[in-house]
Structure formats: C-alpha cells, structure tokens
C-alpha cells in the first residue's frame, strides 16, 4: 500500500466505507453462523431476532433456508449485498490497495456470487469465507508503517464496530475499547477530532454523537 497523504474526500470516504462494510460483513457473517447453529435444534426464531435488530424481516422454515436468506435475501443486510458494497468501494480506490488486500475483498464477493443461484452455499463454506476477512485485517495491521489509507480503513472498522455493537447488543461497557480505538484513529486523521464518549442508557444520543464525530473527519467542500 502506497504511503500517501494525498487523498480526496471521495477517496477518504471510500476507504472508510470499505472498512465499515468489511466489518459489517464479518460481524453479520459470524452472527449468521451462530444463529444458524441455534436454529437447528434450539431456537428456531434466533435468525429473525438478529435481522430484526438491523431492520430486516427474514422468513425461513429451517436453518439452511435461514442461511440462504441471510446471504442472498432481498434485504439491506444480505451478506452478498454487503460484500458487493465493500467491493465497489475497493474498486474505486484500487490504486490505494495492495493486490492482496484488493484480491481478498474481491474474492469473497465472487465466492458468494458464484453460489447465488444454486443455493448450495453451506455454513462450512461461509465460515471459510469469513477467514478471508480476518486475513484482510491481518494484512492491514501487520504493515510496519501505517499508511494514511490504512488509517481510514481502520477508522471505518472501529466506527462500524461501535455502530453494530450498539444495534445488536445495546451495551455501553463493551464499547469502551472500540471507542478508544476510534478516538485514536480519529485524532490521527483530524486536528479537530472531538472525542467520542459513549454514555450509559442513551443509545439514541450515542448514535447521534457517533455520526457527528464521523462527519468531522472528511471535509467535502473547500
């Protein structure tokens, strides 16, 4: 990854969203596997509960059908859609990514896409695919020198992590470590970074202040 300070608002935005979509895909993918397991013989509604938290309504009759709906269903949080979004962002900033980072994002999409119509993707394969995303984070964090582009991706990752934890678990205590990370990247990227401090029992306000902090990073207009 080239070390560069020269990023336009559009590029910075694409880097942040690449980080966000990768994280959303990973978290939801792992949650899908957990709920898949629960649906088999413990809690048939586990998958519905998960996706309801993200505003998507899922219908399924068995664990396999749930898996297919989670991956390919017509809703805003399908894994294929998230993967496609991550890939679109990666494509527009192809010059800022190494071949291995780009290849990792791209191959997850192609692997998901290839099985869209034959309904043959199983949970084992999905688990394998998710290791590609772990590989992506690994590649990003093992660089000796953190480039500006990597900082934006990691910023997007911590932003998404906080957002998801608030939506899925609603607990503030688990956010503290992520908030620390976010503030670290935020202060590296902006001189005017306002520290994000989550407060107890007010998810609405936490969401708002998270959005406010994030919009502080990129200046879209001169």
């Amino acid at each position: 990854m080239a070390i560069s300070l020269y990023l336009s608002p559009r590029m910075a935005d694409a880097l942040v969203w690449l980080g966000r979509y990768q994280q959303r895909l990973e978290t939801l993918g792992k949650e899908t596997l957990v709920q898949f397991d629960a649906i088999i013989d413990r809690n048939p509604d586990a998958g519905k509960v998960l996706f309801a938290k993200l505003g998507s309504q899922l219908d399924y009759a068995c664990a396999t059908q749930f898996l297919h709906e989670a991956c390919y269903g017509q809703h805003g949080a399908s894994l294929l859609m998230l993967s496609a979004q991550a890939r679109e962002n990666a494509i527009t900033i192809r010059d800022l990514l190494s071949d291995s980072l780009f290849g990792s994002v791209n191959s997850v999409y192609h692997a998901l896409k290839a099985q869209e119509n034959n309904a043959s993707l199983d949970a084992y394969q999905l688990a394998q695919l998710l290791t590609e995303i772990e590989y992506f984070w690994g590649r990003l964090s093992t660089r000796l020198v953190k480039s500006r582009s990597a900082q934006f991706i990691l910023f997007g990752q911590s932003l998404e992590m906080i957002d998801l934890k608030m939506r899925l678990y609603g607990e503030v205590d688990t956010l503290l470590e992520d908030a620390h990370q976010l503030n670290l990247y935020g202060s590296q990227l902006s001189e005017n970074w306002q520290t994000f401090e989550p407060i107890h029992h007010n998810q609405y306000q936490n969401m708002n202040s998270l959005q406010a902090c994030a919009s502080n990073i990129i200046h879209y207009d001169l």
Partner: protein
Amino acid sequence: MLENNATYNQFFDLFQQQDHARLAGFDDFMQRQGVTFNLYKNDQFIEQTFPFDAIPRIIAADEFAHLSRGLEQRVGALNAFLNDIYGEQKIIKAGIIPPDFVFGSKAYLPAFHGCRAPQDIRTHISGLDLVKDSVSNEWLILEDNLRVPSGASYPLSIRRAYRQLFPQLFEKMPIAPSDNYGHLLSSMYEHVNPGGISVVLSPGRLNSAFYEHGYLARISDARLVTNSDLFVDNNVLYLKSFNGKRIRVGVVYRRLDDDFLDPLNFHSDSMIGVPNLMSVYRAGNVALLNAVGNGIADDKGIYYFVPKMIRYYLGEEPILSNAPTYLPWFEDDRKFVLENLHKLVIKDVAEAGGYGVLFGSKLSQQQLADLAAHIQAEPRRFIAQELIEFYDIPTQVDGQIVPRKSDLRMYIVHGKDITVWAGGLTRFAREAGNYLVNSSQGGGFKDTWIMGA
C-alpha cells in the same frame, strides 16, 4: 502461416513438462485481482475477463533491438509532427502533407494552435500496432495510437501470475523483465511535471478500462482520480484533500478523450471533465498525457504520411515500414484502388476498434459497386491497404494447439528519452482465419516475451 523459431521450440519443450492443471491458476488470478474490462451488452453493465492464452508471443533479442530503433524513430517523428502542426506548420508549407488531410480532420484542434506542451513532449505514451508479414518476414506498422492507448496493464499483471505459476520457464529462458513499466511512467511524469503531484484521470467506475486506470495509477505512484476530485483556481489545478486543504497537480495522465476533458473548451455537456482545465494547460501549469489534439497524428489518413514525416523531420530512412497503403484522395491511387477493390482492405478513417474495416475479397459484386461509389463520392474518408498475410502464432483453443492470427501492440514512453517497453500486448483472433484481433471483436490476449541477449 505459423511463426516459428528456435525459441518457440525451447518454450514448447519446457511447457510440455509443466503441470497443465496449473493453467487454471491464470483464471483464478484474473478473477481475484479483477483483471477485467467493462462493457454494455443489451443495456446491462458487464465486467468481463479478457480471454488469456498462456502461449506467449516470443521476440528474439536482435528482433526487439530492431523494433525498438524503428519505434523510437517513429514516435520521435510523430512528436515532431504534432509540435509542427500546432506550431509553424512547416510540413504543410513544404508540400509534404496536403492541408486537407490536417485541416479536414475532426481531430485537428486549431483552438490550441500555438499552445506548447511542457518540454515539447506530446506523445508521452504511444501504443503502436504491428503485425509480422509472413511473406517478407518483416514487421509492419498497422496503426499509431497516440491519444489514450490502452491495454498495457493486461500483460503486465499476468506476468506476475506467470512467474508464480511457472517459475521454471523464467529460470531456463532469458525472458526480459517487464515490470519496469511503472517506473518508465513515473520518471516520464517527473520529466514533464511543471510542479505538483501526478494523477490518473479516469472517466469513472463504468469505463471499459477502469481496472487498468487503477492499476497504472498504483504502479506509477499516481493517484487515481475522477473529475470531482479536481478543481481549477487561478490557472492552477488542484486535488481536493480530505482535510479541506488543496494539493497542486502537475501531471494528468488522462484516460478520457479530448472531447470530454473540459466542458468550457470541448463538449459542453461533458460530465466527466474538469471545467477550465485548459486554462491551466494554456498557462503551462499542467502536463496532459497525452497532449491535447494528438488525434491528428493517429488519423488513419495521416498514417500514410508517417514515413514521409520521418524523412522530413529526422532526415532518416524509416526503419519500420507501413503496410502498403493507398489514398483514394490522390487520383493515381484512386484509380488503382477502384481497379483492385476486390483484393484490398478498405478502412473508414473515422472508425476505430476494428469497426469500419471491409475486406474486398469478402464483398459481393453489388457491395463492391456500392463501396466504389462511396469512395468516389468521399475519397478523403477512406484508405485502402493490401491484405497482409501476417503470421499465425500457436494458440491453445479447447486444449488443442492451433494457429491463430495475432498482432502486437508495443508501448513507447516518451520522457527524457523515448523508450520502448520490453513487453507488449499480443492480441489474437479467436476463430481460425479471422484477421480482426480487437478485444471489441472478441479477441483474446497473450503475454509478449522479449528474449534477453
């Protein structure tokens, strides 16, 4: 006729020993890396991989040296021609090129007459198309592409996969490395840069060559941008920075045509251009790669005059020849063309990408008569060429090795020096007996191996 030499034999001996199951690795690589070109089919956006054949085109060391000298000479003359046409116009005054061929071409931009390019370089990146004639065994120039020649990224990226999949071939054969292309570009940027960073300006995600734009930006250490990233202030071009600051841009490797570059100076409805970019250019504050108005030099009608340019500007005999070409605009040529229409190849000068190419031998009597009438009505619009029986090269189709027509695009980078890249895009026709190798006509590509001395 199949091109053959000792090096091909060496290749096949080694290639037979390889595990051919590994060939699947090329497709994996291209899919993983998104080595694609985009197209619209039935109103749908499709990302397509460029069909690849692992059998390379092989060029011997002495042959490459000869090609290099010829291509450097040709690009030098074309650059001199462009500086002259947008300057003193000596070659017209001297009667070497009839004014009609310059001033009658849509690609000539008189509004930029007198506007000098930084370092007087206009042909920064050229892609010259050649074929090897099986009759004379000589390389012939078919086309000069001096506007936005594309395609270098395909052989460049596949080479990396090739070395990973079949290292033995590179151990045993003296194949010249081709991975210096990015460096050739970046040192050229440096030479023509009036001050600032370098960017590759792409029309955007949906452009057919978007993959290539990102790839070339990365290997040449430039930023991949679209017009919304840039703005002009006081005759200087800037990149908007995410932190609200501005960064001066000195080099724009633009991957869009002149017509779309600046809505104030060209098509006013261009949504992909940068308003007032040309004021920066007129002020000498940016190098545009390639220069504005280059289309006049790769016009199919002007092609005929390139050997004359070489003699006129350089005082040298052309090292590489054109395919034998006739201009119906000249009365003698017109007579010859009309008499021999049935065995010539007729090209419409306004078309590109293998469109507007007619093979006389494949036309009916009625079609020939229609074409003759068309040529008589608009002689300036056509050129006629003799059909070149260019070599086939061995190509794998459905597991069989068969002969296929192939051309070669070589890339020449013009910075401080004119340098021919030791690689190239070899395109092949997918059907037997087809002479059209263009990717828009369904052709595939091969790597091009230059043998070390």
